[in-house]
């Protein structure tokens, strides 16, 4: 039996002032997957996008990247990081919006590590896909999206829940 309306907007934030960090907290465990969609520009300089879960700042994150820069394709890896850096070359630049769509799969289960599938598009720099791992079996209840440099006013961050029947 199909269940209707299983892709639900949970929360959304639009920056009213430049910032390098936003948080989604008290995330319900009622869904199966989370989808995070971010549209950002850099406030003053190019920057990147990191994810952290449940406030974990230990070296529990790793990523594998596939990116094309317009002249070359490449694959890269970051291991044992303090946050999941979603973009290797496809950073967030000033003036042009850059878009990240991350699928946080089976985020509330308590038996497996959490894997994130991301498509990132920075049209003036690169396009690519990233798979990220958070080595924790804890259910994800908060997501911190952060950067080294500020994002500009108007950058948007939206969190959705997908509920399986």
């Amino acid at each position, binding site marked *: 039996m199909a269940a209707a309306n299983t892709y639900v907007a949970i929360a959304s934030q639009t920056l009213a002032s430049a910032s390098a960090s936003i948080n989604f907290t008290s995330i319900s465990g009622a869904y199966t997957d989370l989808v995070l969609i971010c549209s950002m520009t850099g406030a003053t300089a190019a920057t990147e996008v990191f994810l952290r879960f449940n406030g974990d700042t230990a070296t529990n994150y790793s990523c594998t990247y596939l990116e094309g820069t317009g002249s070359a394709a490449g694959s890269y890896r970051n291991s044992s990081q303090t946050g999941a850096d979603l973009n290797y070359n496809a950073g967030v630049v000033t003036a042009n919006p850059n878009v990240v769509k991350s699928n946080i799969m089976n985020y509330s289960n308590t038996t497996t590590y959490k*894997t994130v599938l991301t498509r990132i598009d920075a049209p003036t720099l690169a396009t690519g896909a990233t798979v990220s791992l958070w080595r924790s079996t804890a259910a994800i209840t908060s997501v911190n999206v952060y950067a080294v440099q500020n994002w500009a006013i108007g950058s948007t961050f939206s969190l959705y829940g997908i509920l399986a029947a």
Partner: protein
Amino acid sequence: MANIKRANTSGITKSGAAISDVPDAPTIGAVSDPGTDGYASVAFTAATTGGAVTTYTATSTPGTLTGTSATSPISVTGLTLSTAYTFKVKGTNSTATGPESSASSSFTPTGHGAYDSIATVTLGSAASTITFSSIPSTYTHLQFRVMARDTATTGPQYSLKWQFNSDTGSNYTAYHDVNGGGSTTGSNGYGANTIAYLINTVTGSDASNTTQYGVSILDILDYASTNKYKTVRGLGGFDRNGSGQIRLGSSMWMNSGTAISSVIFSADGTQYATGTTIALYGIKGA
């Protein structure tokens, strides 16, 4: 009260025109979801006594939102999703507005998205295949969201493999993909095969990997078409803090005349491990 109203009934005229009875209260019926965000459909039964009614009005609590109709049901708009409402109905004619009905049962409107969950399989024990059958053709696209591990321990990764409608003929372009292994990139392609797959997106069950599964998202576009081949695009991979794969892939089922009504996922190594989860969603068109 009824006797008092009937003292003003037909036969009494005002400036030569007949004066109707005041309407009696209708009987409230069920409140239902008409399928549009923010709407409620309020049913009622007209009173068999009292004056003839020209317009019925349904009024919500809270909000005092109203809708009108000459017949049942009445559509009320502007409801806030996830808010509980009750409704009362009253009739109006040229003489007066009658008393309200009793309140309806509580009604809470929900959203009507374009993305429905059709079915989910989570393995409680290892299995060689996972099958989705009797897939309705009422959607425009399908999406599978997969978290999968193979019980095989001899390799670090395995492929996600599937067939449509039990077709085992050489009717699949198995894959074309672009992939990254962390330091190298590649692209693979393969022609007609008896099965389709997104390679290296299912993890194995070696000793160092008991808590981590590969993940994939498959979009099956225009799956119910009966006049063109069916294309699948995939995004999948895994990361194991020092190794991993990320893949963008596509494949095609070379069948133009049949809507996809079933999908069988077959294990590439030994079996899909306990905890493997595959969820099927339908995406509606306008």
